[in-house]
């Protein structure tokens, strides 16, 4: 009897030990989950931080400078008190459009080649080779633009300045090329085979299949890749700062030196900027414009990709 009671007691003890261990595990579980949640929340905090800081500093800027002057002024000389944003818009536009002229057609063609023409071994070599272009740091592209592209441009068009929008645009086009080609390839490869076979069955040539069936079917994916490449070009900093100079010219002439939004931020923050000064606030006003522009483009691209993804899956 006593023995039985003892074993019963130890049974209860064991159970309570097990239960407390389980409780400890569950508590630990909650702690780990909480920590992981904080990590995930940090990404939200980062976004909030970016928005709050850009907006609050830019607000200080717009208390001194009217929005009208900012958006329509043609002279950008913050030191002299001229805050016309248009020269920076021109510079950024020249780089973005020029880069797009290089990367969009070439990237789409390479995407078509990879998805429709290349045999698997060729694709296997070509893809990583192109990825290399995207992996080279942008400051290296700046060097390449300054000391390779610009001399060539100067030989072709002698009036080209030492710093010019064209060379910056060309190298930004080269560095965004893999982005366009690989996203285009993904989009084209996702088009169902049956569509191609239907067209071939009607006697279409390969070019006709590609241009009238495959590319139109993958259009939203292709457009998304274009928008992402342009958005990347707008935010590109080092290559452009090195190659295209830091002269805020109000011009659309690609042989002249220009200043992009990013180049302005780099140049101004390189010198010691005093916190709270107008120069300090100016870079945030420019940064806010940059952030909003690229954000809208990225959201549009994501929407297109989602739309495309739901179509064929």
């Amino acid at each position: 009897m006593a023995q039985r009671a003892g074993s019963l007691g130890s049974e209860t003890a064991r159970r309570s030990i097990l239960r407390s261990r389980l409780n400890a595990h569950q508590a630990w579980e909650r702690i780990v989950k909480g920590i992981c949640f904080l990590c995930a929340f940090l990404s939200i905090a980062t976004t909030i931080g970016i928005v709050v800081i850009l907006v609050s500093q830019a607000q200080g800027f717009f208390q001194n400078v009217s929005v009208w002057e900012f958006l329509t002024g043609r002279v950008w000389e913050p030191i002299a008190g001229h805050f016309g944003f248009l020269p920076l818009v021109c510079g950024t536009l020249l780089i973005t459009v020029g880069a797009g002229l290089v990367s969009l057609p070439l990237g789409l063609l390479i995407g078509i080649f990879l998805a429709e023409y290349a045999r698997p071994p060729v694709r296997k070599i070509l893809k990583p080779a192109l990825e290399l272009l995207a992996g080279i740091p942008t400051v290296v592209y700046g060097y390449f633009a300054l000391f390779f592209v610009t001399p060539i441009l100067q030989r072709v068009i002698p009036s080209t300045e030492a710093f010019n929008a064209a060379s910056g645009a060309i190298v930004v086009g080269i560095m965004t090329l893999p982005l366009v080609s690989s996203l285009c390839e993904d989009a084209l490869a996702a088009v169902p085979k049956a569509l191609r076979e239907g067209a071939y069955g009607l006697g279409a040539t390969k070019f006709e299949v590609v241009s009238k069936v495959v590319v139109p079917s993958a259009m939203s994916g292709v457009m998304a890749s274009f928008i992402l490449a342009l958005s990347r070009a707008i935010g590109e900093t080092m290559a452009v700062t090195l190659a295209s100079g830091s002269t805020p010219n109000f011009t659309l002439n690609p042989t002249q030196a220009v200043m992009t939004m990013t180049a302005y931020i780099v140049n101004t923050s390189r010198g010691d900027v005093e916190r709270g000064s107008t120069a300090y606030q100016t870079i945030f006003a420019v940064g806010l414009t940059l952030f909003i522009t690229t954000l809208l483009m990225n959201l549009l691209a994501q929407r297109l990709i989602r739309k495309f993804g739901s179509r064929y899956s």
Partner: protein
Amino acid sequence: MIAAPSPNLRRRKLVDRLFTILAYSAAVIGVALLLILLSKLFADGLPRLSGRFLTSMPKQTNFAKAGILSAIIGSVWVMVLTFLFAVPIGVGAAVYLQEFQTKKSRFTGLIQVNINNLSGVPSIVYGMLGLAIFVPLFTALTRDPLQGRGIITGALTMSLLILPMIILVTQESLKSVPKSFREGSLSMGATNWQTIRKVVLPAASPGILTGIILAMGRAVGETAPLIVVGAASLVTFLPRGLTDGYMVLPLQIYDWSSRPQAGFHQLAASAIVVLIVALVAINSIAITIRARSRHQV
């Protein structure tokens, strides 16, 4: 008897052939651009590259004796710290989104969209975030504006920049772990966290590691945010503490390229060769890991 092809068909076939040539030549141009770029960089940079270049400090004017020692050491400092900050947080965030929150709630959806957007924010904007938060923070802590712009400020800024990248690749790797792995572990009585730690993370680790290495590779070449948070332009000493001034390799390249003297341009080219060799080394580690893990499965 077969009828002769109509002129229309002949034209269509001609267009088709021309387009084929166009597609092939686009691919050739892509590869040619890469080869031209690399050969220009190596042709400029290799001749001056020497052991002394790697072990000397940069100089204000004397480019014959200048080197990249402080830039190499600075880059290593920033990378190690960035790794320490970004990897645990990034993996933790991915585990939360992928493993703890398996039900799709509106909040996790928001985080997901947010991470996708963050990965598209221009790098210089992160620099501005660092300028507005970390610089004043460390200035206040050290009571020295110079130390406010030290290594740790740069590394924290860089961590925020590569965090979205690390979260996204970790999520992808976690997704690729078969559901049966988790179910097997859970049915043996393991808790969710035990399953994650002992089953899911080890199975996903080659993919996670590859992604982390690629993200670090991108951070090594990143310049713009570090300029904004105030990396110095001439550093002739080696940093000894977390708040010391520093130089990184891409910034040294930028500085030398933007000087007027041709002698500095050659130094920039040599530094580029070092940077590219380092990047190739980093990426080949990633490729090796990926290849080996595929072999195992």
